[in-house]
């Protein structure tokens, strides 16, 4: 589902810098109706970051530079918590982390905004423990200052080393090496004791460190979301009671990017959906499936606490968002695509019985025979129309959209003069495709009265260079039937 609607594509664009922010991404999930308050907080946090990014660019830059330097210390925290002695390198990393986190804390506080889940406590006590000589250097050593005894042993060791450096006679060298070894053994014993002491005095601060990790994660993740929102021109979703979904100038970033690389422009989508059944009809290649994915993606982003790819998205919080598209063949264990679809659908229908959500259905029953498929779609529409869930059908079956349903149609090729056109096109399918895409009006218009589905399939086939003879025969049949 995440890949299908393009959510993975959006998440990949997040520039997350710390392992802690990565953790936020990994545990990302949609908020449910009862979590409305938290979701609004998360979006409010995002709004505040976006609002302060420009005025405090310098501070954010410094914070991000510090992010890049942070190492993952969660392993060391765990070790310390299980009363193991930390080694010099783990202490070094805790010290560096604490200095970095303290720096981030100060800059974040200077920006002066609140973000839920970002609660830095003072880490100075940790830094003090690991910097007994007060150098404030980003290095660590088992400092002489930890113990007078250690200082003396090391002085003696160094003295012997000096002697050793000057010694030239083998017996003297052997003797000095022996002596040095004694001091090395003593030094190691003392160092070991100090490491144990340091580990136990840090133990009471582990909660501080864990909170710092979480805070940095949330901050990193929120900044990444904010920067993406600014860069891509996203807007804040608006959550409202009175269940509906209204999207103005909605875009799909993946498709938009794809079109952009071909020098084309994405046509933004306006649509309003109500509880019960909604439908989009329209010609093939009219962008209906993209519309579904655009709605699905933006609704999902809003429920995940992101800004959305639209001028506006007004919606009510719901418990699920499903897209039933004919992409399930791989998972259908020997079922046909139609069979797979039914099984998937049933699961979704169960959800509509216990809660409300958003159910997007792309060309249901297209894999079965059209006369039955048409009836199945009609039945499903009628069933879902009584539910609180917003269902949106994309279909090109005729006459399935019942009165009272909210019905949109792709403007499509309605306003194109085909008689003029077919003469000018050659039978090069690539040329036909380009012409088709340039003529297609991807906008949606509301259908007030029951109408026939436009008969554009033949025109499109002709445009794409379907064999002339077939087209001629088809025209004959059309005139008899239509």
């Amino acid at each position, binding site marked *: 589902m995440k890949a299908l609607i393009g959510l993975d594509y959006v998440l990949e664009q997040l520039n997350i810098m710390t392992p802690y922010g990565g953790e936020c991404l990994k545990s990302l999930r949609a908020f449910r109706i009862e979590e409305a308050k938290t979701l609004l907080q998360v979006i409010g946090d995002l709004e505040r970051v976006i609002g302060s990014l420009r005025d405090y660019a310098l501070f954010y830059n410094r914070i991000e530079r510090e992010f890049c330097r942070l190492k993952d210390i969660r392993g060391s925290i765990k070790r310390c918590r299980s009363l193991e002695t930390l080694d010099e390198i783990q202490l070094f990393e805790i010290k560096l982390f604490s200095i970095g986190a303290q720096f981030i804390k100060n800059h974040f506080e200077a920006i002066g905004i609140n973000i839920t889940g970002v609660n830095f406590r003072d880490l100075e006590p940790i830094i003090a423990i690991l910097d007994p000589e007060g150098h404030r250097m980003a290095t*660590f050593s088992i400092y002489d200052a930890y113990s007078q005894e250690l200082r003396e042993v090391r002085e003696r060791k160094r003295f012997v080393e000096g002697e*050793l*450096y000057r010694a030239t006679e083998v017996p003297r060298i052997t003797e000095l090496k022996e002596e040095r070894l004694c001091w090395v053994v003593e030094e190691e014993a003392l160092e070991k004791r100090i490491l144990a002491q340091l580990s136990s005095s840090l133990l009471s601060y582990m909660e501080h460190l864990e909170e710092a990790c979480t805070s940095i994660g949330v901050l990193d993740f929120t900044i990444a979301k904010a920067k993406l929102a600014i860069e891509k021109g996203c807007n804040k979703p608006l959550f409202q009671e009175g269940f509906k979904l209204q999207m103005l100038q909605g875009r799909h970033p993946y498709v938009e990017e794809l079109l952009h690389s071909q020098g084309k422009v994405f046509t933004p989508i306006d649509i309003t959906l109500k509880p019960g059944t909604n439908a989009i009809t329209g010609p093939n290649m009219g962008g209906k499936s993209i519309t579904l994915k655009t709605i699905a993606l933006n609704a999902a982003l809003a429920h995940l606490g992101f800004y959305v790819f639209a001028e506006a998205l007004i919606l009510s919080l719901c418990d699920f968002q499903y897209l039933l598209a004919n992409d399930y063949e791989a998972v259908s264990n020997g079922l046909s695509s139609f069979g797979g679809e039914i099984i998937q659908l049933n699961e979704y229908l169960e959800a509509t019985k216990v809660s409300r959500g958003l159910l997007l259905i792309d060309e249901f029953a297209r894999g079965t025979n059209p006369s039955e498929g048409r009836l199945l779609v009609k039945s499903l529409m009628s069933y879902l129309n009584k539910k609180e869930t917003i269902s949106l059908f994309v279909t090109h079956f005729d006459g399935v959209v019942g009165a009272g349903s909210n019905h949109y149609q792709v403007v499509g090729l309605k306003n194109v003069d085909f008689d003029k056109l077919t003469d000018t096109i050659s039978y090069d399918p690539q040329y036909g495709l380009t012409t088709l895409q340039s003529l297609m009006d991807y906008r949606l218009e509301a259908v007030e009265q029951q109408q026939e589905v436009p008969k554009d399939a033949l025109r499109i086939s002709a445009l794409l260079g379907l064999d002339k003879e077939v087209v001629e025969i088809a025209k004959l049949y059309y005139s008899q039937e239509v």
Partner: protein
Amino acid sequence: MKEFLDRVFQLESLAIIGMEKNVGKTTALNYIIAGAKANAVLGLTSIGVDGETEDIVTGTEKPAIYVHRGTLLATAKNPLLSSDITKEILYTTGIQTPMGEVVIFRALSDGYVELMGPSINAYLRVVIRKLRELGCSTVIVDGALNRSSSADPSISEGVLLATGAALSSDRAAVVARTAHKLRLLSIPYETDKEVLHLLQKALDTSRIIFIKASVLEASKEPTVLGAEVAIIEALNNGASGVAIKGVVGDRLIQQLLRQVQKPEEKTIYVEDGTKLFINSENYERLLRKGFKVRALNPIRVIAISVNPYSPEGFSIDSKRLCQELYEETRLPIVDVVSCIGVGL
């Protein structure tokens, strides 16, 4: 011998590579460390060994080195923690080895340490750069057994080649094999900047490149092994040369010698001399037939160090060995134990 040390400490980085085990690489390294000036900050690391089996072999063999206070060292976490030096941790690199992450520390006392650096050239480059950033005037890379890749010029500015009686009990054989290795390491290099740039860029994406009149053509062959036929075909059909990424061995050379027409018009490009594993007969025939062999990157061997003692217990007359090596190679030759230096 002072001249030798001066030469070493002029370099930003030096790799020490050995012709074989027990050629006194570590002895030479210890000698250089001991000879460092008091105010110079020396950085030390090694190209690590992949895989555990080799670690077992060399781990026991490899004597720890004795360094002085103030030296910066980049080594894996396990050997670092078991070193008897008083340490100040400066930087964790995030580069993992079987012996733990590579960490850079400053020696606050003298003492023993085992060097186990990154095993990948790209990482080694990162470590050397970091050591330089942290203030090292010269970084010395202890090369690994049978792996001369640390001589890669993009990694080390100069190379010290270690050789000795471990190669053979016959002095002439030691001289011949060492001279041959030196010849491979210091093959002529391409000086045309444009050609160089084009070839290097092409080798970023393909392992074999054919040079045709005015174009470079990437071969589809994924490795040199098995690509012999394709290479010969291309050379016999208009290609004036081939550039190869990775090792070039005797197998390919023998086939080229047998089957390529007009060898005097053909050039074989390799990344650098460390990639050539060709015996002296084949190399000689290659040149006689007129093939040109060119490196894209020059390697500068600055001196050869000699260990006249073999692990089996015999020894070679060091003075004569040094003298003959000098006559053969015209490079400075040193025996750091006996304090012999020829051609300094």
